């Protein structure tokens, strides 16, 4: 226990401190931007980012992953804030946490295996598009100054890292913000600043219970939002965990992460913050900057609140154009550009799943719905594919007997084809159906076999079914073959 804690917290102190600092600096503009997306004061997102990062550093299941207020979550709460106000958002955040903790105890983290790669790609692409679209209001009906500032900001962000020495040691988004703020203040430009968007934190967050009536009506208002938030939060967290796993070649504890996300959201809700989850972009930045342990996430959260509380007068002056530039970078970095070139290489069904996920999300602004559609489509395509993995061969033997050999997978998707493979018009005395190399996966398969047998009997043929018991072994919901090599051999017979 202690050893593990030491390893997770203190094995990479220098790297974690540096990376945590970089992430804290990058989190500030994002937290503000996401608060604006959700329609709340910047302080709600900043408090949330602080609480979530610090709590998840302690209770999360994936060291080195950054969680805070996120765009995916912010997009889901827009209507709740608009219709019912901040207090209901805080209550929904608490409920989200409770749902996520339950999900953790039910071990739903492992359900991620049903989310295919194309759905994940669709999710991140849709997220990137939504984050970009959320910046558009800041770029419409504004003076040319804003466009110039945004362009300059993007230029700084992407070109500064190429400078020798300083380029790789100072975060370029920070440089962008500092330079643009300085320019705006010096010229005295009259453009929108962060201070115009709402209240910034001037104290540490304090404990407060959401001021909502505790009744069924409240529950019915917040429950749909909480369920959506919980699902999207866990989805993005699990996806991000997978990315961090891949990058660092280590494993994460998914169910612990589910519970951790829940605890973090409850913490955020009680401290006046909005719901959040793991962040793909920030976690990549963290790993890229050398962060590996829990300390990096903890430092990011702590530094964030310290900087915000002590520098709120300065943060107020940041022009929105600088924030937009940073968010465009986040959007570009989140988008999976290789998925566009891969469109040519991948099969059509994969592309349909990915694009459908993106379209549904962009149309509904609800990532959970998009993932649901994506998973459904992917499942159907898969069932269709496996359904074709069945063939019925037949051979006439002497004495007016015909033998059918069924090979492959028989289940709901292939049962129709299965029935059609038999020739009922042929006049034979006896029909033998050999199922030794077939797998019957569900009740549909069994009933279609019944259908075949009855049909043959009606035509006056005698029917013998061979190997039924072996074929139907796969119907039971849990068959523990993987542990027994002999059973595996038997199951895989014929493939």
């Amino acid at each position, binding site marked *: 226990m202690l*050893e593990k804690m030491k390893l997770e917290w203190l094995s990479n102190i220098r790297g974690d401190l540096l990376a945590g600092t*970089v992430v804290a600096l990058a989190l500030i503009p994002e937290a503000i931007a996401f608060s604006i997306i959700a329609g709340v004061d910047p302080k709600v997102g900043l408090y949330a980012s602080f609480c979530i990062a610090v709590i998840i550093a302690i209770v999360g299941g994936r060291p080195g992953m950054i969680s805070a207020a996120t765009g995916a979550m912010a997009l889901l709460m827009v209507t709740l804030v608009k219709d019912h106000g901040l207090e209901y958002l805080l209550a929904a955040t608490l409920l989200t946490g409770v749902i996520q903790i339950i999900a953790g105890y039910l071990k739903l983290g492992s359900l991620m295996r049903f989310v295919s790669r194309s759905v994940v790609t669709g999710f991140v692409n849709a997220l990137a598009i939504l984050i970009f679209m959320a910046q558009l209001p800041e770029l419409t009906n504004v003076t040319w100054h804003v466009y110039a500032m945004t362009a300059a900001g993007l230029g700084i962000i992407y070109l500064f890292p190429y400078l020798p020495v300083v380029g790789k040691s100072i*975060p370029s988004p920070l440089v962008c913000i500092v330079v643009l703020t300085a320019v705006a203040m010096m010229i005295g430009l009259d453009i929108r600043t962060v201070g115009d968007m709402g209240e910034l934190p001037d104290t540490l967050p304090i404990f407060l219970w959401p001021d909502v009536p505790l009744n069924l009506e409240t529950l019915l208002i917040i429950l749909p939002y909480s369920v959506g938030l919980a699902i999207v939060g866990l989805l993005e967290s699990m996806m991000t965990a997978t990315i961090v796993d891949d990058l660092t070649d280590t494993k994460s504890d998914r169910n612990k992460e589910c519970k951790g996300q829940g605890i973090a959201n409850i913490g955020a809700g009680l401290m006046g913050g909005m719901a959040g989850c793991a962040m793909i972009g920030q976690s*990549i930045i963290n790993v890229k900057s050398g962060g590996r342990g829990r300390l990096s996430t903890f430092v990011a959260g702590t530094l964030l609140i310290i900087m915000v509380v002590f520098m709120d007068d300065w943060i107020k002056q940041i022009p929105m154009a600088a924030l937009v530039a940073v968010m465009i970078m986040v959007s570009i*970095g989140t988008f999976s550009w290789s998925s566009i070139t891969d469109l040519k290489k991948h099969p059509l069904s994969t592309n349909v799943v990915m694009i459908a996920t993106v379209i549904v999300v962009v149309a509904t602004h609800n990532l959970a719905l998009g993932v649901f559609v994506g998973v459904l489509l992917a499942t159907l395509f898969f069932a269709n594919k496996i359904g074709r993995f069945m063939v019925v061969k037949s051979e006439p033997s002497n004495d007016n007997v015909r033998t059918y050999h069924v090979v492959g997978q028989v289940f709901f998707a292939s049962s129709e084809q299965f029935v059609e493979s038999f020739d009922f018009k042929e006049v034979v005395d006896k029909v033998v159906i050999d199922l030794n190399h077939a797998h019957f996966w569900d009740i549909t398969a069994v009933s279609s076999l019944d259908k075949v047998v009855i049909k043959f009997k009606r035509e006056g043929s005698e029917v013998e079914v061979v190997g039924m018991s072996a074929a139907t072994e796969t119907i039971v919901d849990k068959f523990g073959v993987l542990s027994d090599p002999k059973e595996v051999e038997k199951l895989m017979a014929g493939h």
Partner: protein
Amino acid sequence: MHKIITCLDGSAFSDAVCNAGIWAANKLNKPLLLLHALEKENVAAAEDLSGAIGLGARSSLLKEMATLDEQRSKLALELGKEMLSSASLSAEQQGCEQIEKTQRHSDIVEAICDLESDARLIVIGRSGQGNKQDFKALGSHIEQVIRQVHTPVLIANKDFAAPKSFMLAYDGRETADKAVKRIIEGGLLQGMTCHLVTVKNKQSGLMEKFKATEKMLRDSGFDVKASFSEDAIFAGLMDYKTNNEVEMLVMGAFSHSKLAQAFLGSNTLKMIENTHLPMLILR
């Protein structure tokens, strides 16, 4: 249950561990398994504090990190192979007949757990490569190994030489009785002088148990030197060890409950930390 798993990592203790493994393999006439675990360091590979993520940030970062890991692993793999070969050569020269070499990609504790089903004894150094050589620093793996493994563990210290005598700390508890049983049944300590030391504790009937154990060991052919003292446990044991040329320590591991260990620490760990001698932990 028949191999002597000898854990090498190229640290200052590796030679001693190797010698201890060879000694045990020869004495028990069991195959020697030389194990090198390629541990993954939890250290950042690249540091890029620019904080900017551009096109394909994830895939390019993954590629970069994978390449770095690849280079590091290859190097470690080669070094490990060389180390294992030289250890196996020296085992051959010292008369070992069955020698196996294996490398695993995991930390040492996991590697040991994976191979444990086939183990008779595990030989390990008191601290690993990562540690500086200050005397007290105990390798972080030791405690984990002792807690997780159900096979006897021989912890080698610097300069291992075949021991002629050992000291058994006997406290009358169940773990100690088990340890005595294992000493008699296992052949590793056969023919050595046994210093049976008991320090008075709250256990009732300790003196009787102590006498019975002494007799049991004597009947099994050990040359027993028994001592019963009333000092504090730890000091008592340390004193005895220094005053009577003891060459190896034998203990039953962890007689506290798990909870108590977490808060109080245990005499087992304290002993391991404070001795220059090789130490055999029986389960």
